[in-house]
């Protein structure tokens, strides 16, 4: 049967997501948020989720809908603070002690995810040594420098945003849209990409930015963000 990863709706894309899933969600700096899929995940209603996301809430992302709906048990992120005086959806839950938080340096977080998708159990990084974010983690000296042991992160589901796809799942990204998407897709059992458009012909190999083997389902959403 010819490979074809296209699905017709966000609900179809997410139909088998379970309670307790660890969900990796792309997006940073205003680009690459899979907002159609995030909203569909809220409508799906799977509970006790762990989100792995750069910002717990971001003004261009809809993760706050998952938080407000009470679907999230834990957030792993590098940014848990809102820029407004008003507390964010995350901060309200966090201050009330109703949600767990793991805060990681951004580059450590993306490398943990990369490791998760690349068969590496853990790695030593100099980032965070001597700070409270690495308290309790194993430290080892290599040469003249101290390094902290960080463990890989992988998940059940990755939701990412790209520009174009073909039916094989190959992806292209616009400008800074890629950010966490490529590594997140590699580190999840089920990776779903929402894209602006699905091309009829296979994307030329020189243009492919993420090979289709990492992507399980493709949803075309047009220009909506």
């Amino acid at each position, binding site marked *: 049967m010819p490979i074809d990863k296209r699905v017709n709706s966000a609900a179809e894309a997410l139909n088998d997501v379970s309670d307790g899933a660890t969900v990796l969600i792309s997006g940073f700096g205003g*680009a690459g948020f899979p907002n159609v899929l995030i909203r569909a995940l809220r409508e799906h209603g799977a509970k006790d989720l762990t989100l792995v996301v750069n910002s717990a809430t971001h003004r261009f992302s809809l993760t706050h809908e998952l938080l407000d709906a009470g679907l999230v048990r834990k957030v792993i992120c*590098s940014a848990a603070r809102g820029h407004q005086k008003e507390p964010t959806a995350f901060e309200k839950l966090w201050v009330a002690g109703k949600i767990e938080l793991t805060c990681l340096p951004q*580059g450590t977080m993306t490398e943990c995810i990369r490791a998760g998708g690349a068969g590496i159990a853990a790695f030593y990084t100099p980032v965070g040594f001597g*700070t409270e974010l690495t308290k309790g983690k194993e430290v080892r000296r290599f040469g003249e420098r101290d390094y902290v042991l960080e463990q890989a992160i992988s998940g059940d589901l990755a939701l990412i945003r790209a520009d174009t796809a073909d039916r094989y799942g190959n992806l292209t990204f616009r400008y*800074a849209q890629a950010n966490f998407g490529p*590594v997140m897709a590699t580190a999840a059992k089920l990776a779903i990409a929402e894209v602006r458009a699905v091309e009829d012909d296979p994307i030329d190999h020189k243009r492919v930015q993420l090979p289709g083997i990492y992507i399980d389902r493709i949803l075309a959403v047009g220009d909506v963000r």
Partner: protein
Amino acid sequence: MTPLNRRQMAWRAAQDIRDGMVVNLGMGMPVHVADYVPDGVDLFIHSENGVVGAGPLAAAERADPDLVDASSRRITLRPGAAIVDSSWSFAMIRGGHIDVTILGAFEVAKNGDLANWDMRLPNKGPLVGGAMDLAACARAVWVIMEHNTRSGGPRLLDACNLPLTAVKCVRRIYTDVAVIEVTPAGFVVREVIDGLDQAQLQKRSGAPLTFANDCRPLIAPELADAE
């Protein structure tokens, strides 16, 4: 004696950028450094979200929601730019491929320890972003900050009070009244504004200062302050 305003502090830091450098600019005051790079100095501005070769902000009619920097500002690209994903972007940072990162700060200790990510605000979540990666791994860390807190307390200290971003990383500090190097012997003042003598600057600092033999006046052109 007139302290430098924030744009003047950014201007002063920009004068130390050398041709061909790869520079990462933190949120807040440091982003203004890009506006004051001396004529004839070509550089790459790296942004944590993967943009290598960020240019000025985009005009409204050309702004693209996918062409943004780490602060969500809609930007342009400089000639020679490339864009990579987050994993590669941080591999550049950790791998020592960023010549200098210019960061804001709350406190710097005399051994170069930096505190710039958590002010311990009540009811606000932590936000570290890429600060620890940059502070620990850029080849040089420069800080732009007011010399004193709003209540007049020192930001140059024997040891930081706020949570650390990275240990022993800061190389140079640009304040509104002085330019200071962090050396194995502690803080060394390179430039200080006219009208502020050594005793007065020491009194405004929370750690011992030494003054370079060739310590010069800190001068900047007139520039309207940033909002």
